[in-house]
């Protein structure tokens, strides 16, 4: 079995983001990048599946040379091969999904893991689009995954509970926190990853449907209001929550 994991390279959630001078991109100076946290669950599930059933794993990422760091991390965790679909311009989700789908076809992968969303643009859609382009089954926001022959039993997170679904290979699975405990890249893994080559492939020009016209920072948080320090303040608190904040 060939298992693919699609990973993205995103700003560390702890980094302070500034908008670039063109107003359309973030300013990368001083920003540390990490593997998208949800993709770590995807990598772990790919590794566990391989350890159980054998096969080969490949990590795929669209981006420039900088994203190699994230591919190296996937390799250090234990992924066998890595492909960089090289490009340095903005691509919307569909354009990325097309590039990934072509490569997945090329790799002959029948099981594909994604993170449920990438924490940079938060579109939560690349996995689904890729599945559609490939004609694969797709289960999203997965917190439990079992493979029996060709059959997949997956647990999904839904509002207030869980949903158990059944589907079959070939399939795209998007991973949610809770699916597993991602392993740390071990020192031996890091040394082994050094010997692996990241295969670089050029991409045709992007055909974007969506264009970013502006990026804006959220309005600064308003300071809190103290309306009292004992129970006599409760009626006023309830009134404000109801009438001003409109949350109850």
């Amino acid at each position, binding site marked *: 079995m060939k298992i693919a994991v699609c990973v993205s390279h995103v700003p*560390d*959630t*702890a*980094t302070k983001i500034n908008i670039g001078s063109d107003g359309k991109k973030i300013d990368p100076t001083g920003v*540390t990048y990490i593997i998208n946290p949800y993709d770590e669950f995807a990598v772990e599930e790919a590794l566990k599946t391989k350890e159980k059933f054998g096969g080969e794993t490949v990590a795929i990422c669209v981006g420039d040379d900088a994203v190699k*760091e994230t591919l*190296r*991390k996937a390799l*250090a965790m234990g992924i066998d091969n890595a492909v960089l679909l090289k490009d340095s311009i903005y691509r919307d989700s569909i354009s990325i999904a097309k590039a990934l789908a072509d490569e997945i076809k090329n790799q002959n992968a029948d099981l594909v893991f994604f993170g449920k969303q990438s924490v940079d643009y938060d579109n939560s859609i690349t996995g689904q689009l890729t599945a559609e382009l490939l004609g694969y089954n797709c289960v999203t926001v997965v917190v439990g995954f079992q493979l029996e022959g060709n059959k997949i039993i997956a647990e999904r997170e839904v509002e207030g509970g869980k949903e158990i679904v059944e589907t079959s290979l070939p399939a795209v699975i998007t991973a949610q926190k809770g699916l597993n405990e991602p392993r*740390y*890249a*071990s*020192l*031996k*893994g*890091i*040394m082994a990853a*050094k010997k692996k080559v990241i295969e670089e492939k050029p991409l045709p020009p992007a055909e974007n449907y969506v264009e970013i016209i502006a990026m804006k920072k959220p309005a600064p948080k308003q300071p809190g209001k103290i309306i009292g320090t004992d129970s006599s303040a409760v009626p006023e608190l309830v009134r404000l929550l109801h009438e001003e904040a409109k949350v109850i």
Partner: protein
Amino acid sequence: MQRFAGVDYFDIESLLNEDEKMVRNSVREFVDVEIIPIIEKHYRENSFPMHIVPKLGELGLFGITLPQKYGCAEMNNVAYGLVMQELERGDSGVRSFVSVQSSLVMYPIFTFGSDEQKDYWLPKLASGEKIGCFGLTEPDFGSNPGGMVTRAEKVSGGYKLNGAKMWITNGTLADVAVVWAKLDGEIHGFLVEKGMPGFSAPEMKGKHSLKASVTSELIFQDVVIPEKNILPGSKGLKSPLMCLNQARYGIAWGVVGSMMECYNTALNYAKSRVQFGKPIAAYQMTQEKLVYMLNEITKSQLLNLQLGRLKDLGKVKHTQISMAKRNNCEKALEVARMSREILGANGILDEYPVMRHSANLESVKTYEGTHEMHTLIIGEDITGFSAFE
């Protein structure tokens, strides 16, 4: 969970290579997830978190500079230093465990051991399946280990050991002790295994420092060890001192982790703690402290990195290691105490890590050569006069 973002005022990051950064990040994450949440409880209960030992082994943190054929990562000394730095950000006791296992047990077995000893012990120590300790200090011989009275005598089929060691990290936990003793007046290393008749390793109680680390006595009463358990390549005081050089190097890096944790805690606290209507970070005296801390961290980082690069080139002098150990431990203790001051009364609580680091660093400043001894080692180097012998 908050990811630790590091303290790096001089873009020292740009001086690290890809592997070094990856190792640092992996251990940093491990410390955030596996050590910081549990360490205060162990500290309070005077216990070492044994459950992390297999995880440390799996990550590959024992003996990381040794060859891959023994199950080690075979990385450079800068990577080793960064690992120590991240571990000590968690706790000096956890770093001590890894220092001892790597620099004071695996290193001497690798350097002075027979092939049989290496093949048997190194893979098991690398995985954490076996634990080791290093017995040099004695009740009456600390800074002056050459005066040791523990002795070995040749008997048929092996050696008989008599004497006692004190202040031995991991002693009670260890499956194997690297013990330094005099044979016909000359110091040699011996491997003493747990359970050998006449050997006991009671834990020392009552520590106010390094409480999440086990410290023990080693007692030898007519302990007969087989011939094959002498470290054949060891000879004279130089051998244990070579081990100490490895460990001191790791300590110089390690304490930077403590400093980073204390500085970060103080900075965040000072920005949010309001007194007299303003955050205390807005007062000049607090800023002076914070700047001092950051400045000392930056100097220590640069000292370490150059020390590591020299070590990787095989050009490092033991007096340079002494300088880094001496400087960084002293500054780390100052930084921890300043951080405690900035936190006011909260600084003494175990809700914050600073008092624990401060108490730990008292030991770290003393072990592996006290501050004074390192001063005198460098003093002798630059003047040509020994002021301690």
